[in-house]
């Protein structure tokens, strides 16, 4: 595995781990809601997290509200919930949430000034296109396939609520002078609304109410037809990631998937968040991932 963390901000003094990841402060800390906004089917949440470092794109935080976490209709949540920021800088974190259950519901109804418990950033984020390419091909950094553009073209694929880390990653790539191809899939136009600001992204919806009528993996297949030397980054629900995994493994495209899994702790303590590996056994999504090389994975479970 690579020790290069391509998201690294060179002039920062943020503590990093041996594998380059941004380390989380030990413990949980209070953060306040700065703003909330509803866009289509999603809620955007901005937190002031003065005591936390900015996250590497693809890392995640564990969130719980300080008040009334639980005791709603079904009395959950009890444990904190994992969310990847769509951006983090200057002591602020930006999240995008979908209300799919009691935890996200509570978070989606937060009001300005309310307090959360935050821990993180946790896990391993995305790696640079060069790193992913070199790792996957087991070749050296001056592989001619890297071309003269300074590296393979990154294709970023997001399905639904998989969007936040993809946004964060695309912004970081842009900052580093790399333009990524963005392919975004949603259920319908209401969900797709949040993508309006990504003018250059290609859109697909399951019901055809916006963009391409069909799956985002169809857009990916078309892109890969056009470019043999791409590197793929994808985040989304299990079935979508599994479709991506199959496509890229058939075509042997270097790919990183940002996985989801039910989590209790977020920092490797419970062994609850596992995904099966190609060579047998399991990896913990929270410490070994959430970003993992597609080539290392067995079929991705639906949940």
């Amino acid at each position: 595995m690579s020790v290069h963390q391509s998201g690294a901000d060179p002039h920062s003094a943020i503590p990093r781990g041996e594998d380059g990841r941004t380390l989380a402060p030990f413990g949980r800390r209070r953060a306040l809601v700065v703003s909330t906004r509803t866009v289509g089917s999603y809620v955007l949440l901005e937190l002031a997290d003065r005591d936390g470092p900015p996250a590497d794109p693809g890392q995640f935080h564990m969130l719980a509200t300080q008040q009334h976490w639980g005791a709603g209709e079904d009395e959950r949540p009890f444990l904190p919930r994992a969310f990847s920021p769509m951006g983090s800088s200057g002591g602020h974190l930006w999240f995008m949430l979908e209300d799919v259950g009691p935890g996200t519901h509570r978070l989606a109804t937060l009001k300005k000034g309310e307090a959360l418990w935050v821990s993180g950033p946790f896990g391993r984020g995305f790696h640079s296109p060069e790193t992913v390419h070199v790792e996957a091909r087991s070749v050296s950094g001056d592989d001619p396939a890297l071309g003269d553009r300074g590296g393979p073209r990154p294709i970023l694929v997001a399905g639904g609520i998989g969007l936040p880390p993809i946004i964060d990653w695309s912004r970081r790539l842009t900052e580093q002078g790399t333009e990524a191809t963005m392919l975004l899939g949603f259920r319908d136009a209401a969900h797709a609304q949040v993508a309006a600001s990504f003018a250059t992204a290609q859109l697909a919806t399951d019901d055809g109410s916006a963009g391409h009528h069909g799956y985002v993996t169809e857009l990916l297949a078309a892109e890969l037809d056009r470019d043999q030397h791409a590197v793929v980054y994808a985040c989304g629900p299990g079935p979508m990631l599994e479709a991506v995994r199959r496509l890229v493994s058939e075509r042997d495209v270097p790919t990183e998937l940002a996985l989801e899994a039910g989590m209790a702790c977020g920092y490797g303590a419970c062994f609850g968040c596992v995904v099966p590996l190609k060579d047998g056994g399991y990896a913990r999504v929270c410490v070994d991932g959430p970003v993992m090389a597609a080539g290392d994975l067995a079929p991705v479970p639906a949940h």
Partner: protein
Amino acid sequence: MPVSFCGLALDHPIVNGSGTFDALAAERAFGRTALHAAFPFSAYVSKTITLVPRPGNPPPRLWETATGLVNSIGLPNKGVEAYLADDVPRYATLPVPLITNVMGATGEELAEVTAAVGDRPEIAAIELNVSCPNVATGLDIGAVPAELEAVLRRVRPVTAKPLIVKLTPNTADVALCAQAAEAAGADAVSLINTLRAVPLQPDGSGARWLGGRQGGLSGPAIRVVALAQVAAVAERVGIPIVGMGGVQHGRHAADLLSVGATLVAVGTESFRDPIAGARIAAELSALAAGA
């Protein structure tokens, strides 16, 4: 609040429950320096180790309840050989003593793992997880006092290190099991482990949620059950007790101590708050100071 336990001088009475804090993963997430500087527990209990490596159960492994967690992790571990070679030297650099939790499918296997672990000077004490089912009776070895005593008589002689027997709470009378452990030479008992629990798919299909089909309930939901079992055991044995089950605050730890525990382990609460152990130890010491 320094405390002495099985000959170990500990800084305070709060340790971790086996399988609820992975010090090596925590180093990766928080950094070694930060973790060691503020290590939350006065001794570190490692996750259950078995003779041969185990991958653990297929996911999903977790189910959340309103005030608890059902887990079906399935004791994934690299096996005792790799544990001793790779992990123990790293655990030895932790600022606290190491207690290794082991399990075997038979008394023979348990004795073998215990002997291997017992050879290592870095390990201060051994916790025996006796919740594995006996193939003949279907009951957990630890649930039947006579069977438990027989197994422990086999294991006790293989090491001079302190042996802590982790009792199963899924039994008719946990105090009888504790007495059996004491009779067979255990230096301490620890309890409670998780309560057998079966969550179903939320879709109403009636199918089971957990990849391992059944799991164990931990967390605040079981706190009053833990108090009942620790109190019952304390009334019947003289060896020290590590009490656990649903501890979230110093007051909960104090309650377990007041019914007879010498140490208190924190499990599920560490998932909600990575430094829960340190917070609880501080709260406990504030309570003691106030009393």
